[in-house]
């Protein structure tokens, strides 16, 4: 072997590697007016909306899988795949009939057996599904288009459960896919939604492609969120994942992408100045910032310590840390439910209103018996919202005279450590920060964070019998007035016991090129009705 041979070999190998089978699909080039290039809020790393319940999976799944009912912009369930439904006089038997002509992407018709299998898988994972499953006597296919759900007692929120946009949604899959264990991931992505998933073009972490499903039969009604006619006006949607916000902003300005779902607040002024870009509030239901205190260990196992923190905290501080100086993007939240929705309540919210009383808070903290032990505060530094909140909390606790053990870490570690029930000094914790989509906080059904059933509750394991009592009252409510009354009492009970600390309500923007039209405000990006000109 001489050196010429080696050099030729190296050059040949390099050329082969660069031009041959190692190539990946184009990310940036060749877009046309029939292709919409979209930058999602996060990476689509898996694509099973029942197994993985992240919002980004739900958002992509809404293109590929349809639901029996869909929630509309007035938060009401509307028929989607269903043509009609009947309830027995005792309210225990629901009989549903599917619309004719529904087809899966593989050409097979959508049958009742597919629905039964899909609902069974969904009910094993969804909080409302679990409630229905606990009441279930039988779920059966009557004929190809009719299925029946027989319960042991009435469940008035049935249609809401089937329509809700909270993850996991009750998506309908072919029976062969829906029979997959709900705790294992599916590998076949056939749905009956308005777009097909181009599995061959999927580069997890970089790109996902959806193509228009020609055989989809939209409803005749006007589209409204997940309800109505899902008319697809483009041939192809490309989801281009961009981990760096500055790059996404530059790509939008440069016309390399058409729609950026969640621009960060710092870059919005730049986008607003660009004459080719529109910027508006993306989701009017916004988000609720929060931090949770661990009910299992001192000092927050004492309600007085929790109330002392609530008494001293300034929601404005938190919101300014998250949003900046744009006052139109946030509002104080003396409660737990999403502002401007039918069940919003401020009952019991006095503790979060008005001038903050640090002295009274210090006194209450002292009464709780706090004696300077470290307070382990988990703060994910890789999530701007949690980092901002964590910094404010650390300052707040110091002002209260607390000994802060500030654990700066990443979200993955917080996600794992918050599940530890061990004492704070032995791998456990006292506080962690997060936030909740406003769409999940419109009522108690999808609102895991508001539950206060101790060991079975969300992290922090709050115990508040009064809160739980009012959750049940809401589920049993027969009309909106009863629901409102139950939520008012629930809000007060949860604040009295400080199930968690709400840090405020905030909105975020979405941005798109002006040659794109039809973008609707909502809790997820809706692609039906969206069109693009060259």
């Amino acid at each position, binding site marked *: 072997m001489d050196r010429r041979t080696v050099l030729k070999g190296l050059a040949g190998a390099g050329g082969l590697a660069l031009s041959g089978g*190692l190539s990946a699909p184009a990310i940036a080039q060749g877009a046309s007016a029939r292709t919409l290039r979209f930058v999602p809020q996060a990476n689509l790393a898996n694509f099973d909306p029942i197994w993985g319940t992240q919002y980004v999976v739900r958002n992509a799944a809404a293109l590929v899988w349809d639901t029996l009912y869909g929630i509309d912009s007035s938060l009401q369930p509307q028929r989607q795949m269903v043509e009609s439904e009947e309830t027995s006089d005792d309210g225990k038997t629901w009989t549903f009939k599917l619309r004719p002509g529904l087809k899966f992407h593989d050409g097979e018709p959508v049958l009742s057996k597919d629905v039964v299998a899909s609902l069974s898988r969904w009910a094993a994972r969804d909080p409302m599904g679990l409630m229905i499953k606990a009441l279930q006597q039988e779920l059966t296919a009557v004929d190809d288009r009719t299925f029946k759900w027989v319960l042991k007692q009435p469940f008035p929120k049935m249609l809401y459960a089937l329509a809700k946009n909270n993850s996991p949604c009750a998506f309908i899959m072919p029976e062969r896919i829906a029979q997959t264990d709900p705790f294992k991931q599916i590998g076949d992505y056939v749905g009956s939604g308005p777009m097909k998933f181009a599995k061959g073009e999927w580069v997890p972490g970089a790109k996902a492609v959806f193509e228009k499903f020609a055989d989809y039969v939209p409803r005749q009604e006007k589209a409204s969120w997940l309800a109505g006619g899902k008319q697809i006006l483009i041939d192809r949607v490309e989801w281009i994942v961009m981990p760096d916000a500055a790059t996404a902003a530059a790509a939008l300005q440069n016309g390399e992408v058409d729609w950026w779902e969640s621009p960060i607040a710092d870059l919005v002024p730049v986008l607003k100045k660009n004459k080719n870009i529109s910027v508006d509030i993306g989701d009017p239901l916004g988000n609720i910032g929060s931090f949770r205190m661990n009910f299992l260990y001192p000092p927050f196992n004492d309600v007085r310590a929790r109330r002392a923190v609530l008494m001293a905290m300034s929601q404005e501080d938190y919101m300014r840390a998250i949003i900046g100086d744009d006052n139109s993007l946030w509002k104080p939240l003396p409660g737990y439910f999403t502002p401007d929705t039918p069940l919003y309540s401020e009952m019991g919210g006095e503790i979060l209103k008005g001038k903050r009383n640090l002295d009274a808070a210090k006194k209450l903290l002292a009464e709780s018996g706090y004696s300077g032990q470290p307070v382990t505060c988990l703060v994910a530094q890789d999530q701007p919202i949690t980092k901002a909140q964590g910094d404010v909390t650390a300052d707040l606790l110091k002002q209260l005279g607390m000994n802060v053990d500030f654990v700066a870490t990443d979200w993955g570690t917080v996600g794992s450590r918050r599940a530890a029930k061990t004492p704070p000094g032995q791998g456990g914790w006292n506080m962690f920060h997060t936030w909740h989509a406003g769409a999940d906080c419109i009522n108690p059904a999808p609102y895991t964070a508001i539950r206060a059933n101790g060991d079975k509750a969300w992290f922090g394991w709050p115990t508040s019998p009064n809160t739980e009592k009012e959750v049940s009252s809401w589920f049993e409510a027969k009309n909106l007035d009863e629901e409102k009354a139950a939520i008012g009492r629930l809000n007060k009970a949860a604040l009295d016991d400080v199930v968690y600390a709400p840090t405020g309500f905030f909105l975020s923007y979405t941005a798109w090129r002006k040659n794109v039209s039809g973008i609707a405000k909502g809790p997820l990006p809706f692609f039906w009705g969206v069109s693009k000109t060259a």
Partner: protein
Amino acid sequence: MLSYILRRIVATLPVMAIVALFVFSLLYIAPGDPAVVIAGDQASPEDVERIRQGLGLDRPFLIQFGSWVWRILHGDLGTSIFTNLPVSAMIGQRLGPTLSLMTVTLLLTIVVAVPLGVVAAWKAGSFIDRAIMAFAVFGFSLPVFVVGYVLAYIFALELEWLPVQGYTPLTEGFWPWLQNLILPAIALGCVYIALVARITRATMLEVLQQDYIRTARAKGLGQGGILFIHALKNAAVPIVTVIGIGIALLIGGAVVTESVFAIPGLGRLTIDAILRRDYPVIQGIVLLFSFVYVLVNLMIDVTYTLVDPRIRY
């Protein structure tokens, strides 16, 4: 020579085994849980536990490690916890962009850094030398992402000459491929160019003091011939070494560069996998990178014989 290469390749196996054990152990004890990420923020602790069981993450360390090694021995890097795709397929999807970026950066570095170092040595102490060395310090000091943002702002947003982000495979044409790589390669190459230029200058300065260079000058050889044929060839061994070591820098730098320029390469796959705790993917990539690094060292050793025929193995 051939037997030497084979011996070296065989010698990589224990290195890889140690890397495998180290990586697996480190991930096992590292905080974080992929089941939590999969289940989503609203999931109950019971749901998370069921997912952990489904993924086999609740099994003892030795059983998990044993089954992983067994699969590796059968050429199976496993399946991604999140995507349900084979790790080898995911790496295959991402290899092209990273290889392209590293190749263009490497070529750019050699074409720019070596002549700069040679000229700096030739004009040692002059304004040109100082300017080149100032550039080298500049290149060392600026983080890759800062250079990347500045380049994207000037050449993509302001001048609109090049795209901000993305990757186009070579199969779709040379220029589309190259135009997506120019800015990332410059951003990534800055540190590398600075390093190689400084080493070239230092080595050349030493060589230019040698007697045979004075002899060459006395024989009336031209400056170009002296610098690039006689001096550079004799200074090549340390330069080649640094270029090789620098490939490790490229692997690290690619992680940042690929994020800044949204290139779907191995660097981004690594970051995504770490943030999600996608253990099989992390393990597969680290094994690949360690293998590449061992291979690069082997190539450097072989290259010594090409640039200096006195070296024999």
